[in-house]
């Protein structure tokens, strides 16, 4: 019995291993970009056909939503880029590797991208742990990593190949403070922020600016990413007697907070950071988000032609309004394409090109260039308020 059992176990084990090996075999074929047959082929054909960007991000798991939105932004950008002749006459495309924005998976993907000579730059990942686990590999290999949602203050400090076109907290949060304190005249602020690297840094910057403008912070509360029940913390806010509630939130949790404000009898103006600027915020929040103030770098009514064009095309193609995540993805791809077109398809040249590039056209920043911290300069803001189920431009 035991001998037969052992034998059976070995046969089964062999079976499982075979499956694993076959699957491994399939991948190496499947993941090779179309047009190349194996590594040797890549070298000879690389100069003639397409240019490739590696994208690592979440397509499954908790953050899958954002990866899907990215893809829409990339696809829209690529349509335009390739219709206009691509990069130096060569078509630009991307490979999207799903990492579930899990730091366990990104270093391997980074090695894969580094080894693929067709890839000239990388975009991603979504969360800070996942992105920053891969950064040292890109830095050592000399491959540009462009973080499109990486506002972590240390992200670009990993080295001179690490860049970001994400909204910088150093601009967003102080602008929101001006909006709340100077434009709306609020003096007693209760601040709720997501307890993540982004939430904490933004809250620090917001509070610094608000206090320098003469406002008093009557409450500061961090909440967990998974929090759904905000009644206890809102009751606490109500008892602190603020004249405005400041939300450093994403749109999902921002809408949830707005809905529970009324339940605890808190009746104050709500001012939320730009991340809530998404149709989802209104969709989820309904009546409860009426009268919420926020700020953004672009709006469908923004007269800048590049913003107008982006919103129109996005709406035409997907039937919904774009949000910030779509815009940063679109911008990221456009920036890489523009610089590659100028300096040629080369990893090192791209890095130097990003440093020298002037007059980059973006949706989020207008015409801009990178600063010494390898983030974009010259942010422009619009003030918004939710009225009749839509974001409207608001002027003080």
């Amino acid at each position, binding site marked *: 019995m035991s001998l037969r059992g052992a034998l059976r176990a070995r046969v089964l084990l062999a079976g499982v291993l075979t499956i694993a090996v076959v699957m491994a075999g399939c991948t190496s074929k499947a993941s090779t970009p179309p047009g190349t047959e194996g590594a040797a082929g890549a070298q000879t054909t690389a100069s003639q056909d397409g240019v490739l960007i590696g994208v690592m991000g979440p397509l499954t798991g908790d953050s899958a*939503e954002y990866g899907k939105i990215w893809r829409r932004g990339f696809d829209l950008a690529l349509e335009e880029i390739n219709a206009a002749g691509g990069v130096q006459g060569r078509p630009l495309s991307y490979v999207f590797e799903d990492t579930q924005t899990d730091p366990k998976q990104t270093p391997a993907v*980074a090695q894969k991208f580094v080894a693929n000579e067709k890839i000239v730059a990388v975009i991603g990942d979504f969360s800070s742990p996942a992105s920053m686990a891969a950064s040292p590999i890109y830095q050592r290999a000399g491959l540009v990593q462009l973080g499109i949602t990486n506002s972590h203050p*240390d992200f670009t400090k990993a080295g001179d190949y690490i860049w970001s076109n994400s909204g910088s907290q150093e601009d967003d949060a102080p602008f929101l403070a001006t909006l709340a304190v100077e434009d709306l005249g609020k003096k007693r602020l209760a601040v709720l922020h997501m307890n993540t690297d982004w*939430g904490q840094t933004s809250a620090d910057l917001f509070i610094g600016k608000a206090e320098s403008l003469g406002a008093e912070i009557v409450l500061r509360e961090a909440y967990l990413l998974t929090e759904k029940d905000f*009644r206890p913390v809102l009751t606490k806010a109500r008892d602190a007697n603020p004249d405005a509630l400041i939300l450093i939130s994403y749109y999902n949790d921002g809408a949830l907070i707005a809905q529970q404000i009324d339940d605890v009898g808190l009746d104050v103006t709500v001012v939320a950071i730009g991340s809530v600027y998404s149709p989802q915020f209104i969709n989820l929040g309904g009546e409860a988000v009426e009268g919420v103030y926020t700020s953004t770098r672009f709006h469908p009514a923004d007269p800048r032609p590049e913003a107008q064009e982006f919103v129109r095309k996005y709406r035409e193609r997907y039937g919904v309004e774009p949000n910030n995540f779509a815009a940063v993805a679109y911008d990221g791809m456009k920036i890489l394409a523009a610089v590659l077109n100028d300096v040629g398809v080369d990893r090192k040249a791209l890095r130097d090109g990003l440093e020298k590039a002037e007059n980059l056209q973006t949706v989020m920043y207008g015409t801009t260039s990178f600063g010494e911290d390898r983030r974009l300069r010259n942010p422009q803001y619009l003030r918004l308020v939710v009225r009749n189920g839509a974001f409207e431009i608001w002027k003080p």
Partner: protein
Amino acid sequence: MLDQLINGLVVGNLYALTAVGITQIYGVAGVINFAHGSIYMVGAFVGWMAVTWFGLPLLPTLAVVLLASALLGLAVERVAIRPFGGSGRTVLLLSTIAAGLILEQAAQLIWGPETKAFHSPFADVRFRVGGGSIGTLDLLILAVGLSTALVLWLFLKRSRLGWAVRATAQDREAALQMGVDVNQVSRLSFAMAGALAGVSGLLVGLYYHSVYHTMGFSASLKGFTAALLGGLGNIPGAILGAYLLGTAEALGVAWLGSSWRDLIGIALLIGVLLFRPGGLFAAARQLLPEPTAGTFIPIGRPLQIPRWALLAAAAAAVTLPLVVRNGYWLQVLATAWIFGLLAVSLNLITGTAGQISLGHAGFLAMGAYASAILTSRLQVPFLLALLLSPVIAAAIGVLICYPALRLRGQYLAVATIGLGQGIALVALNWPALTRGPLGISNIAPPSLFGYEITSAAGFYWLTLALLIGGIWVAERLSGSYLGRALRAVREDEVAARAYGVGLERYKSIAFGASAFIAAFAGVLLAHSYTYIAPDTFTHALSLQVLTMVVLGGLDSTIGVVAGALALITIPESARFLAEYRFLVYGVLLLLMLRFRPRGLLSAAS
């Protein structure tokens, strides 16, 4: 204060709905159903479709959801419970986890990953109570919670079928001999619990005006906590436990802050279980909620692998980077070696000592944070940090796990979920030491004797060396008196104690040794990622390590390394499946559990 009490009761209301379903299934099948949260989520989506697409009013929606989720409950029973009848509860735990994963991935493919707005089909009228308010929906949820609990209780106590259900729960074999169709009973309970899960998902979805594919997990975690507080299998206890949890959290948030919510729940659970290991409302004679011998974990006889084959495999692994120049595969394998080391460490707890731990990410986090803080704050050289961190992790690990070690079986399993998450939450809420949510960045790469290890091959060798060291230590421990004592605890606690093996003492040694080895993996992780934050150490990671151990073969050191290798390389190999990757992973997991319940490298005993 009064307002906070009301806030607590309102959220306790929501917890009660899930807790009742979980406790009912436990009462019947003797298993914590980890797919419960996924049925809850599907129920919410079905209700959302009924309301948003077909414009149904509330009552027909409820009926549709009841029917659909009862059917889903049946399906889960058919696929993830019945085929595993004889294979012990660890396997059932993992098979329900796999079923839950499949449902969650399928839901994401069907309905998409974005959160859906769910506006209620009826007007919500709010009544002022104190400074806050209570709405009609709160009352509806209360009514549904209490009435289902009452109906369930009456059914179990008064009807013949209910007696059959209880008889099956007490002794399956005896019930079978008395002519009870136990499969029928099992189907019935899963259908009922499924229906209840679906309706709770619907109501909670309405309450928060949103449904999304990952909503089940945190809801079921709160449900587990409430059910354990009340005593598993005890329906009124689960409801009281839910209200207790809700109020404790609300008061805790008022006192400490919102980031402390989950930590408060965990502390409450462990505090209560410390004094009443069977839950608050368990009678004293129910102190032994689990069978302690044999049946709990199926241990196969480890497959005898000849020594030369092991040496050959080790030699092949060592020389691999000389042949394979592909950085990608070296990186994947290095990750597999780190997780192999982690699996070896968990195997001491789960395989050798027979205790389930679902919080192993916590030990990993302690090793990683210890080394990150030592090297980047205190400028300690890497080699010294590598040696010091495991000592620190083992000391803290024993200290915090000790109170939980009085618990048995699934109680311990849920307590370890709490401990694992608790460690990450402490890292989040202690910014002075850990920089809180910002995490620690720019951790130096490993350096030995003045050489920085930055290449994929160098890192591969470092991880492999530590893995081989870990295997050697674990094998030595396993073959010593300690290993035999731990196995005695696993096989029969009462007999072990009678022979003079102190249970808590030996379990602590197992947890300490495990934390010690896991911390090495943590150090490697920190210096390889160069950035760690509290959300690096997720609950999903703990689950994955446990899966590696069970799949590889409990109590087989080489087997669990093979398990780690398989579970790291298969998802990597399956990248071409894109969005379907983790759906396929769930199906594979279920199949492997079905056909190799004692692990890949383990023969049937």
